[in-house]
């Protein structure tokens, strides 16, 4: 048998909707078979040990993977969803063993302590997302913030998006296998890989000429720039306009609907309401400098 190196990974689903997982299933190149079954890069295979939506085992055989079935300092922790922290973690569990509720908060901390690195997949895991929207009923927080509160020092890469494009996640994993952890020049201030999140949507928008010419749509679906309808493209760093979605079929603005800014920490409350033009004054608050 050829010598293939195994890279164990654990995927926790927390306060989210499973949409990030479903989005990753849409990956085209590499295909999802390449990701789950094949050597993702020559000689290296990601061994996904735990993922609630696809794993065969239920109950005890599943929970056992999280409790002792993992090599110390030898796995990748992938977090989908925000961490519900209110009332001692009672608002969300990853499972139960011998009558003990294993809270998402507790398991995130436990697993992060021994992980090589943490990938926060999606805006909920990266920044809190909609579950943390006002009045934040479950005390939902980003993965990075709960790790900082607990004093756990482990590299975190944020891959936000509601959901993230599959290329953003799969490409980041391929990068980890080929080149190791991203360096400081590879990430922006928010821990996002610059290769995907380095440019404003507005910079590469096909409707940019309409903006410059002052041609604005008055209803979703009309031609023209969608800025007056609340488009957050001028405040949002992502490559959606050039990469497009679902194997290049379309994207939100292409389909006549404003960009929601779903990759930003201001989603949803800072960008509320979604379909209202953002004022000049508020615009200044959202200025996030981008490394070039």
């Amino acid at each position, binding site marked *: 048998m050829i010598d293939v190196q195994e890279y164990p990974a654990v995927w926790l689903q927390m306060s989210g909707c499973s949409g990030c997982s479903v989005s990753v299933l849409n990956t085209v190149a590499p295909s999802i078979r390449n990701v789950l*079954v094949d050597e993702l890069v020559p000689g290296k295979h990601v061994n996904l*040990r735990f993922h609630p939506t696809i794993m*065969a085992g239920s109950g005890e055989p599943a929970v056992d993977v999280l409790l002792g079935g993992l090599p110390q300092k030898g796995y990748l922790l992938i977090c989908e969803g925000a961490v519900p922290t209110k009332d001692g973690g009672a608002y969300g569990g990853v499972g139960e063993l011998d009558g003990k509720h294993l809270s998402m908060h507790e398991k995130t901390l436990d697993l992060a302590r021994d992980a090589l690195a943490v990938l926060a997949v999606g805006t909920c895991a990266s920044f809190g997302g909609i579950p943390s929207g006002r009045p934040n009923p479950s005390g939902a927080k980003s993965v990075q913030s709960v790790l900082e509160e607990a004093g756990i020092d482990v590299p975190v890469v944020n891959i936000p998006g509601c959901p993230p494009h599959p290329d953003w996640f799969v490409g980041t994993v391929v990068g980890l296998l080929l080149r190791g952890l991203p360096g400081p020049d590879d990430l922006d201030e928010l821990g996002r890989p610059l290769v995907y999140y380095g440019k404003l949507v507005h910079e590469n928008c096909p409707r940019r000429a309409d903006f410059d010419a002052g041609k604005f749509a008055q209803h979703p679906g009309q031609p023209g720039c969608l800025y007056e309808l609340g488009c957050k493209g001028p405040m949002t760093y992502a490559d959606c306009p050039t990469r497009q979605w679902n194997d290049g079929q379309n994207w939100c603005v292409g*389909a006549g609907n404003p960009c929601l800014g779903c990759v930003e920490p201001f989603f949803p409350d800072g960008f509320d309401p*979604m379909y209202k033009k953002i004022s000049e004054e508020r615009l200044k608050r959202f200025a996030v400098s981008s490394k070039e």
Partner: protein
Amino acid sequence: MKKIVIDPLTRIEGHLKVEVVVDGGEVKEARCSGTLFRGWEIILKGRHPLDAQRITQRVCGVCPTAHATASSFALDDAFGVADRIPDNGRLLRNLILGCNYIQSHVLHFYHLAALDFVDVTAVADYDGEDDDLQAVKAFIGRGALGPFVPRHEGDYRFSPEVNRTLTAHYVQALRARRLAHEMLCIFGGKMPHSATIMPGGNSEVPTMDKISTFLGKLSEVQNFIDTRYVPDVLAVAKVYSDHAGVGGGCNRYLAYGSFDLKGENVDPATRERLLPQGLVTADGEFQKIDAAQITESVASSWFSSPSKLHPSEGETEPDPHKEGGYSWIKSPRYDGKSTEVGPLARAMVAYSLGAEPLKGIVDSALGELGAGPDALHSVLGRHAARAIEAKIVADAMADWLLALKPGEPVCADWAVPDEAEGMGLTGAPRGALGHWIQIKDGVIDRYQLVVPTTWNAGPRDEEGQPGPIEQALEGTKVKDADNPFEVLRIVRSFDPCLACAVHVVNAHGSDIRRFRVA
């Protein structure tokens, strides 16, 4: 007597725990609970009404489109445009939701349910040329088998050859479901969490190049459904034929109807729909639906708010110490009774109306299996109904696609009212889905969702009626309590979506009240 706790119950959407008490090899008592609280309805309060169709999609990453549809129906109603949806807008909404059905059903059978029937390890002995099976064989040879092992062991009945064929289809189904999302993206902007379904219609416009690309992908997906999905479900039904007598629930079925065939009727209870609306009682009697009959019990749920409220007046006051509570899911009831929703419910409604093409397809499948209509109340009935529905919807999509008229309107004009109410009823892939909105001072004052899995996974009500999943489990024979295949197969046959069901409710508190086993 033995209690089996399965937590997490995997290969479903979201976080579910199931507890069953087994005595003498039979389930005596069953209880389901969700283990995640997010508070969507609370988060919606005070936001702009237009944001509802974007935010409610984020309830569930598997069927966001169904929420966009229900929410836009509720907004159509509140904005007073439900009778003015242009044909293009109606057809595009149907196409987008149809893609969601196909993706969800294919994913459910192959990637969520099949591993309870199919033994992937049979591929270790494969010596053929199929590229996918060669890849799976190499994977098994390397010995690191996550996420397919560990698993429950025992009741895998197919021959090695059939196991290999179905494993190859598992991999092919990954492509089929991806294609369904790509089709959705053509008119929906992106998926999951599409952009375009709006009150009044849709924001993306049909053009010939989009229609052409959609058509190409659709024909590949139709071919997959006809030559893989439907035959594979029948293959499972033949080898696991005892499961035609396992997993019947309350045998009472509700459907709100899915896919509008006309755009003028404002009343969702009487709109002409591809998958018809209706109620089938436990006696097999058909009734027209009346949304006023929907209430939500909180008798066994940890809420102090009044029980049996209509969703338009729904309240959500958590009380983790409530006497007699054992779940954080509410229990919707229709005319006071537990009622199953989902593809099987839609099939039973259409079957009782004699609606074609459904009745003909169901009769021919039953004939092939040598079974009568009673076999539909079962694990296999739910899988078969889902596969047949995927075929009917995919075939209808080809007609809708060709009926699009490039250059004609896709969306009615509207203005957001200061005060209004609206109701949106549709069918999500997993069953009847209702949204209720109340707008005051131009913002959302109250938003309530009654979702499919709440109907199916809710706990006991005031009268002691268990929810449909609990009813389906109770009385089931369990051969091996350490490998409770029967329990897992029954729960998964409902295709539970806990992200939807526990959008308002709490999980377990530290003082969770749990029944003890003698």
